């Protein structure tokens, strides 16, 4: 009964990923989608690895609003928390969600984050923190999680030992579509913990009559009836207990316990003949179940009470044979576990592909031990240990694969080194020569651009003179200089001719200036395009040259460090697996020894009772003979 919140926990866990993004909004970040792809397949290691990297990269960018993850960052951080929980990393889970909660986000998003954080704290058994997170919920709450919040609140109260507060919350959830059945049962438990016995009985009666076709709610209805029946038996109210126990479905998970209790209630009410019915059904069921084993002994006991000693003797005999066979099976199972076969079976991958792999273990002929471990496998601590062992086995497999890959990496780097190293010196020499020529051209180009820009504001026609015109002009200026101060009789007329020629040239330069400037500008622009192509090729070369270097330089240290980290991790995992495996085997063997001891005790009593029944049957027969 103390495990009342468990169904809630299960429900919360199953609801977890259903609220993750992917369907509602258009996906803008492929890498977030990739993480979801792995998560939807239950591969939370790969999902976490990808999403964690993506979120970290997003956090490092200068302008996050330009990053595609920006549109999903809240969902991504929620999902990180979910994945961490599902990968059973409770210590880390909540870190990302806390970041959302403390950021400047919309009220609905903040409330969603607070709920998720509370759920994580609850799963970590940090009840005060869980309640504090719930208290941060204020304002608009997403409709889809309104009932989840209240149900979680009630479970926290129950776990804190405040049943009256839990009852207050649960009352408001009785009409909830998703939680009605669970709330009805938990309310009964809350009343019981609060000492309101009568209210608890009435509430459990209501919870035991809910109309539903949901398998989880049907199970909780059965549990309500079983708990109610058990409470009435404890109170000595045997006649009232039987109808509730009979309400438990015969094919439900609580059927065996209900049949057993029903028989004991009838026996205690001195209605032995009625006890025979449920025990007869139960005695034919799976013999490894402890309730069945008890019924195999209780049934002949009831026949004995009814003075049907012959039949009692037959059933005691059957029970004895069965117990003996089961003890042999248990011995074989204990030996099998001690030989390590249990752990070997657990890590077989083909079994774990099935989601009901724990159940399917029963079908394995080479793992008889699992017949008796179903209850143990269902306990929280054992489940945690088992899952950890399986996770460690997965990690070990991954690490060993990675370790094998380092040699290939090193070989690849060595091949590239051998290929590029002799080629690069010649390439670099050629590049340096080209580089200096390019720089010269770039400088010339810059100078021309500067000149054009200058001419746009200050016209300078002589700058646009052709080569011939420049030569003519230079010659004319040379002649003009010679004629200066000349005493030749032709000097004056020659000077006149020179000036006329210069004037003609100036006329041409001035009148054609705009046309020439336009042509110059057009040619310069064409040169820009050519320069851009050259620059692109230059950049491409530089990148290619860098890529060549980057393909083999700078890997030695990271590979060495990673190799060491992988080796250390493998060693740690080997150590942890050995400890975890040993612990699992120890607990499993202890469980089997306890079950064997119980069966041996049952066997002793059956043997004694068998002899007693024969005696009584013989005496009864003798009495009949005497009378005759």
């Amino acid at each position, binding site marked *: 009964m103390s495990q009342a919140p468990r169904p809630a926990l299960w429900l919360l866990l199953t609801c977890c990923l259903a609220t993750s993004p992917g369907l509602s909004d258009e996906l803008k970040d492929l890498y977030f989608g*990739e993480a979801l792809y*792995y998560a939807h397949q239950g591969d939370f290691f790969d999902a976490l690895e990808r999403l964690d990297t993506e979120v970290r990269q997003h956090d490092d960018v200068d302008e996050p609003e330009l990053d595609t993850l920006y549109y999903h960052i809240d969902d991504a951080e929620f999902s990180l928390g979910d994945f961490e929980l599902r990968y059973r990393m409770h210590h880390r889970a909540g870190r990302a969600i806390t970041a959302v909660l403390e950021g400047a986000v919309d009220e609905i998003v903040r409330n969603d984050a607070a709920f998720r954080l509370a759920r994580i704290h609850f799963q970590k058994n940090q009840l005060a923190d869980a309640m504090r997170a719930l208290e941060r919920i204020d304002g608009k709450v997403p409709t889809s999680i309104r009932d989840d919040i209240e149900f979680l609140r009630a479970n926290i109260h129950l776990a804190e030992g405040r049943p009256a507060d839990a009852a207050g919350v649960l009352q408001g959830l009785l009409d909830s579509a998703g939680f009605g059945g669970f709330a009805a049962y938990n309310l009964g438990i809350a009343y019981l913990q609060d000492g309101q016995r009568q209210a608890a009985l009435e509430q459990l009666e209501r919870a035991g009559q809910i109309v539903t076709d949901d398998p989880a709610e049907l199970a909780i209805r059965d549990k309500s009836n079983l708990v109610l029946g058990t409470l009435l038996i404890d109170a000595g109210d045997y006649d009232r207990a039987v109808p509730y126990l009979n309400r438990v479905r015969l094919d439900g998970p609580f059927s065996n316990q209900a049949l057993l209790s029903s028989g004991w209630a009838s026996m205690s009410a001195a209605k032995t003949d009625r006890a025979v019915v449920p025990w007869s059904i139960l005695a034919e069921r799976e013999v490894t179940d402890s309730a069945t084993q008890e019924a195999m002994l209780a049934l002949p*006991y009831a026949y004995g009470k009814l003075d049907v000693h012959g039949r009692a003797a037959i059933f005691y005999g059957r029970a004895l044979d069965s117990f003996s066979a089961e003890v042999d099976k248990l011995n074989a199972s204990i030996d099998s576990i001690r030989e390590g076969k249990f752990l070997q079976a657990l890590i077989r991958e083909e079994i774990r592909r099935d989601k009901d792999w724990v159940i399917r273990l029963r079908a394995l002929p080479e793992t008889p031990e699992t017949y008796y471990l179903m209850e143990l496998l269902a306990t929280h*601590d054992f489940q945690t240990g088992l899952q950890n062992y399986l996770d460690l086995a997965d990690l070990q497999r991954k690490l060993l694969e990675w370790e094998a890959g380092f040699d290939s990496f090193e070989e690849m780097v060595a091949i590239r080194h051998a290929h590029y190293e002799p080629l690069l010196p010649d390439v670099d020499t050629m590049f340096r020569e080209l580089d200096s020529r390019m720089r010269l051209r770039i400088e010339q180009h810059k100078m021309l651009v500067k000149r054009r820009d200058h001419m746009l504001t200050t016209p300078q026609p002589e700058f646009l003179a052709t080569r011939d015109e420049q030569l003519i002009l230079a010659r004319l200026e040379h002649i003009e200089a010679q004629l200066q101060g000349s005493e030749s009789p032709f000097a004056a007329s020659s000077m006149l001719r020179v000036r006329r020629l210069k004037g003609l040239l100036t006329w041409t330069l001035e009148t054609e200036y705009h046309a020439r400037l336009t042509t110059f500008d057009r040619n310069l622009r064409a040169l820009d395009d050519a320069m851009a192509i050259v620059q692109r090729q230059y950049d491409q070369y530089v990148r290619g040259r860098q890529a060549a270097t980057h393909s083999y330089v700078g890997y030695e240290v990271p590979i060495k460090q990673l190799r060491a980290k992988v080796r250390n991790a493998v060693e740690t995992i080997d150590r942890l697996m050995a400890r975890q495996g040993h612990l699992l085997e*120890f*607990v499993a063997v202890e469980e089997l020894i306890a079950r064997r001891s119980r069966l041996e005790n049952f066997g002793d*009593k059956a043997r004694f009772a068998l002899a007693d029944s024969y005696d009584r049957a013989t005496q009864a027969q003798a009495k009949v003979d005497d009378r005759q």
Partner: protein
Amino acid sequence: MSRLIRKLLLLLLVCGPMAASTAQELSGDDMRSLDGQVQEIKSDVLNIASELNNLEERLLYPSNTQIAVFVSIAAAEEFRLDAVQLEINGQLATHHIYSYQELEALQKGGVQRIYTGNVVTGDHELRVTMLGKLENGSDFTETDSFVFAKGVEPKALGVTLAGPAFGKSGIQIGDW
């Protein structure tokens, strides 16, 4: 005699679970202590995986030649995707046959990185072929080609698949 048996039964009922639970509680402390260490090593291995992926990407798929192709299924599509084949410039790049789990993950909004490789900068042709089954049980195959430009930065292409519809290709490609 019968009273004795019943007393023994009740005693066993009470003692049996108690003995078992004591053993479980004892081991429970160890289990919890180990659980903390397991969580730590998980965190360490996740970091190693991240570093290794980074190294692998640098070594095998440098950014100036890297191309990654992602596959997703359009929302509300009910067809069953059986396989996808990619060819880049007429060469088979990859071929993937989907398991039920993978298909379900795609239908729930997951995106599969189907191919990571290297191509030089410039224009290239991507040819996508999908094989599947329609709701009515009939098989279908569809192929479409796309041209994409590879620059100096890593290239990511998203292929969105939908069932065949009249006059419309079920294969759409997006640039990321």
